[in-house]
């Protein structure tokens, strides 16, 4: 049997990437292609009274102008289960006549080139009516605080009579009382009426029995995704079929979102997305802005390219919700948590709410296993750009808010930081979150976090570094920190699809987005290994939905490795069963006596090649070559498999494997920093991370995720933040250098990664996802290392800036106003 799982290999897209042949959205050209430019709102909240486009329309070279009123109404969504989700009439659209943040696109022009399009934009007269706005969630929560929309500052449902179904989600006001803000000036986060409130265990007794109780406030900044490829799109129509070239995190599921945004049937959308320049959650199912070239292309009857600039990307690209958090935590003398009370205030744009604040508490309940916990949260809307999921959404913010408290408690109790996390760590099918309707708390499939901590402590040489932590040499102090992190890591129920043709090769159809994680190819190595084929006998098709692709998960939330290795396993199991039956029919004996290995189906002395099995499958037809398909596969897969029927032996199946518990992965991160107490400057000297995410499929891709996502996490500690003019509500950090991602010199040059590599018992391949949990591990290991060097209470917000450290060092207390967002 060829071993492919757990081995390194060269992905089939790499040669095109290194030679410059790989084509991202902006690399495509179409005959007669026009260019579009956007007019952005200069105001954080305004209504367009009138627009005069006559001068622009008269300009030579201007081909079409698009207003918000011309957008099709967004269609309702029908889920896999036949459930209808109503389109949100107050949600984000491609263009608007009532912008709710500065930088929001309001109209677009298509012209023969961009200079002409911009000249046309400048000739368009817009009469704006400025409206009240707010760019700070706590300002909006004050009793007389402004709201970002006329309707209010939160999403909610109007109360209904009992027995009636809940009303639709709508924006409504939620203001806190003046007394809720009593301790605001002391830097304590106000805690008024929450939207979500859950608890378990006896919180009061937990605090009563604690040897140490801490009550801490911490804030973390909003920050952009900063994908390197802006969300550019090229669109054109061939007859009534819309073709879109754009980057996305899911080839298959983005077809559905384009169909919904454009209000056209699924089969009228062709998406070409072979390469995507980063997603990090911000283009899970594409970007709504790609509607603009799509509609302009129809109006102008020509292909339209909309190139998004870096500034535009800063507005529409997406922002991770910033958060304020307050943590009251009780600890026994031995370091065990006795109770934890968490309140999170998440910020959101005036559009669809992200669930970050509401979901954060679950990960805290899992990571530290407090015997009693309460989690309260609220999500407040402001006139700032759309929030989108970003790597480890909700988990990152909650862990960044709680980890410093765990570190502080360990220091006060005199307990080693690794030991502190180890003794509170989850094990096995650990409980998490609140009780469900059945009164029972949910649990996860498996946890080997203690093993990850042990492995990391050894690899990092924690004891040696701990011994020198806090010691000063000249003006510099070293500090070492450890942090634990977790996030959900896998979904179920998707489909696998491949054909083994009479040439003996396996043709796999991958619906996974190609955004650099390599899972678009990695997951299929499971099926190839099961079929006993070499990797050079496998051809993977991906990224063009005019070709048949099966129903596939979105590459977000670390789902893919888990979900699609299961689907690949299901499809290979289906193909093996069919091959066994064909061999038994052809050569005699029982199907069960045959084994598939080395590209052959064999039993005793009887044997036939998979190439011959493929020929036979075509002769037999029916289920063998895909003319008859399983009933339980998704209709997307049925369409794809029908197009492939008759080409060879088909493996096609839905993942119906059982799973007991929620799939979650863990990471333990270790960092050492050096802080100059005279300048406030600090440097990350070393970093090590160890993952617990089951069986590893592709080690090099895995290591890149563990360290790469850890550095994404460090960027939250080091530098990333949005900055807003509080008076005018406009963004001041609109470029990379103003909210600067780490360069290669900002991170250690010899970071290490490893993995527990123990299979998850609740999935056939044993693999869970790893994209998310390294983020908080990287962010918090560095924060905790800074605190280890300088002591507690030196900083109360992230990013930890040099000036805030220096000010605090000079004054002996945190100096920055901690509760204002976007500063």
């Amino acid at each position: 049997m060829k071993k492919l799982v757990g081995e390194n290999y060269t992905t089939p897209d790499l040669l095109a990437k290194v030679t410059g042949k790989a084509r991202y959205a902006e690399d495509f050209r179409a005959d007669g292609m026009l260019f579009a430019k956007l007019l952005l709102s200069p105001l954080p909240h305004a209504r367009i009274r009138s627009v005069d486009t006559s001068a622009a329309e008269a300009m030579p070279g201007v081909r079409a102008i698009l207003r918000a009123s011309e957008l099709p109404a967004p269609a309702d969504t029908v889920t896999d289960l036949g459930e209808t989700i109503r389109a949100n009439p107050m949600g984000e659209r491609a263009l608007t006549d009532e912008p709710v943040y500065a930088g929001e696109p309001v109209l677009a022009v298509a012209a023969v080139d961009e200079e002409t399009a911009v000249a046309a934009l400048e000739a368009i007269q817009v009469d704006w009516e400025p409206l009240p706005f707010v760019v700070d969630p706590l300002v909006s929560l004050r009793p007389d605080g402004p709201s970002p929309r006329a309707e209010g500052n939160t999403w909610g449902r109007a109360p209904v009579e009992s027995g009636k179904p809940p009303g639709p989600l709508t924006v409504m006001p939620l203001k806190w009382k003046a007394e809720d803000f009593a301790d605001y000036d002391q830097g304590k986060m106000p805690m008024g009426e929450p939207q979500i409130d859950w608890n378990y265990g006896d919180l009061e007794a937990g605090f009563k029995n604690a040897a140490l109780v801490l009550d801490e406030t911490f804030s973390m900044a909003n920050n952009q995704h900063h994908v390197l490829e802006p969300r550019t799109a090229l669109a054109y129509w061939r007859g009534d079929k819309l073709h879109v070239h754009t980057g996305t995190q899911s080839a298959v599921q983005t077809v559905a979102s384009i169909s919904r945004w454009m209000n056209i049937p699924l089969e009228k959308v062709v998406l070409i997305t072979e390469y995507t320049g980063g997603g990090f959650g911000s283009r899970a199912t594409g970007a709504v802005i790609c509607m603009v070239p799509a509609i302009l292309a129809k109006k102008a009857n020509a292909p339209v390219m909309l190139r998004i600039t870096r500034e535009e990307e800063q507005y529409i690209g997406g922002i991770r919700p910033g958060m304020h958090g307050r943590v009251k935590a009780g600890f026994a003398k031995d370091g065990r948590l006795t109770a934890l009370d968490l309140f999170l205030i998440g910020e959101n744009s005036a559009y669809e709410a992200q669930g970050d604040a509401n979901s954060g508490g679950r990960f805290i309940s899992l990571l530290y296993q407090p015997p009693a916990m309460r989690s309260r949260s609220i999500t407040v809307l402001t006139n700032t750009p759309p929030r989108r999921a970003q790597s480890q959404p909700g988990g990152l913010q909650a862990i960044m808010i709680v980890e410093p408290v765990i570190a502080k408690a360990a220091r006060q109790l005199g307990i080693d930081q690794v030991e502190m996390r180890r003794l509170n760590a989850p094990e096995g099918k650990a409980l998490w979150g609140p009780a469900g309707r059945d009164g029972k708390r949910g649990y996860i499939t498996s946890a080997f976090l203690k093993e990850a901590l042990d492995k990391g402590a050894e690899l990092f040489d924690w004891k040696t570094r701990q011994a020198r932590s806090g010691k000063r040499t000249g003006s510099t102090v070293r500090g070492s920190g450890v942090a634990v992190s977790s996030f959900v890591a896998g979904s179920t129920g998707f489909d696998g699809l491949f054909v083994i043709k009479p040439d003996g090769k396996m043709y796999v159809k991958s619906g996974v987005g190609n955004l650099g994680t390599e899972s678009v190819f990695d997951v299929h190595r499971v099926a190839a290994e099961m079929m006993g084929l070499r990797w050079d006998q496998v051809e993977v098709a991906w990224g063009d939905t005019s070709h048949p692709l099966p129903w596939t998960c979105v590459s977000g939330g670390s789902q893919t490795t888990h979900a699609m290795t299961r689907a690949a396993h299901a499809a290979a199991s289906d193909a093996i069963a069919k091959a066994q039956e064909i061999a038994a029919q052809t050569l005699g004996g029982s199907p069960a006596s045959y084994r598939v290995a080395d590209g052959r189906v064999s039993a005793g002395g009887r044997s036939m090649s998979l190439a011959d099995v493929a020929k036979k499958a075509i002769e037999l037809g029916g289920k063998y070559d895909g003319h008859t398909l399983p009933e339980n596969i998704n209709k997307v897969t049925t369409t794809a498999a029908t197009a492939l029927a008759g080409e060879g032996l088909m493996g096609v199946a839905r993942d119906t494997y059982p799973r007991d518990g929620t799939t979650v992965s863990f990471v333990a991160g270790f960092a050492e920093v050096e802080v100059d107490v005279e300048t406030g400057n600090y440097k990350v000297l070393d970093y090590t991370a160890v993952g617990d995410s089951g069986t590893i499929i592709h080690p090099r891709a895995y290591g890149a995720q563990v360290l790469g996502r850890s550095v994404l996490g460090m960027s939250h500690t080091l530098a990333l933040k949005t900055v807003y003019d509080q008076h005018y509500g406009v963004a001041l950090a609109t470029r990379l250098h103003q909210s600067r991602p780490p360069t290669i010199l900002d991170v250690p040059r010899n970071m290490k990664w490893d993995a527990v590599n123990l299979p998850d018992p609740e999935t056939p391949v044993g693999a869970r996802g790893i994209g998310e949990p390294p983020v908080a591990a990287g962010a918090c290991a560095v924060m905790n290392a800074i605190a280890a060097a300088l002591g507690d209470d030196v900083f109360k917000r992230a990013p930890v800036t040099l000036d805030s450290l220096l000010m605090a060092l000079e004054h002996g207390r945190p100096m920055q106003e901690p509760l204002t967002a976007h500063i």
Partner: protein
Amino acid sequence: MSHDDAHRLHDVPASVSRRNFIKGVIAGGAGVSTAAYLFRSGTLVSGQARTGAVERLITLTVNGQTRRVDVAPQETLANTLRYKLGLTGTKLGCDRAECGACTVLVDDVPRYSCSVLTHSVRTKKVQTIEGLADPDGTLHPVQAGVVLEQGFQCAFCMSGFIMATVGYLKKHPSPTREELAHGVSGNLCRCQDYDKILTALHRGSELARGVTRG
């Protein structure tokens, strides 16, 4: 900002006039600008009078080939390469010399092509990612290093990093890992795959020197 300022914020918006708003934006050094990153096809330029007219049809040497191309005076090398010469391996990530995705070699020196005017390279040799491999497809050692180590994730930054490395190695053929990191520090990778990238590029530097591993 003081506590008092924060408290006062909520009564500001209604009093913002358009004039004050614009003044504030100017004072804040920020604006909502669309006047950047512009591509001009040239079809309309002849209709507009321009002072200091420059010859438009120029000869460029790109990847060893001589190419005649119609170039507007304000056109950047990145746009000429991508939109006139079809060399789309050079990527635009920021168009303002912040990210390095557009790095090409001009007379063997790594340059951000988004910030180089095409007219300024008329007498120089330009090399892009497409010109690195031999005509028979044999990869440049730096490209080969990337393939061997599965370097980069989304790879939108890859051609810039590779060109920066090729340029750096011309003057520093035997860099340490640390030195090479400095050599490519003008390039951003937002997947933050720096560790594996550095391993791959360093492997490339070894291959370029003929260093083989057992």
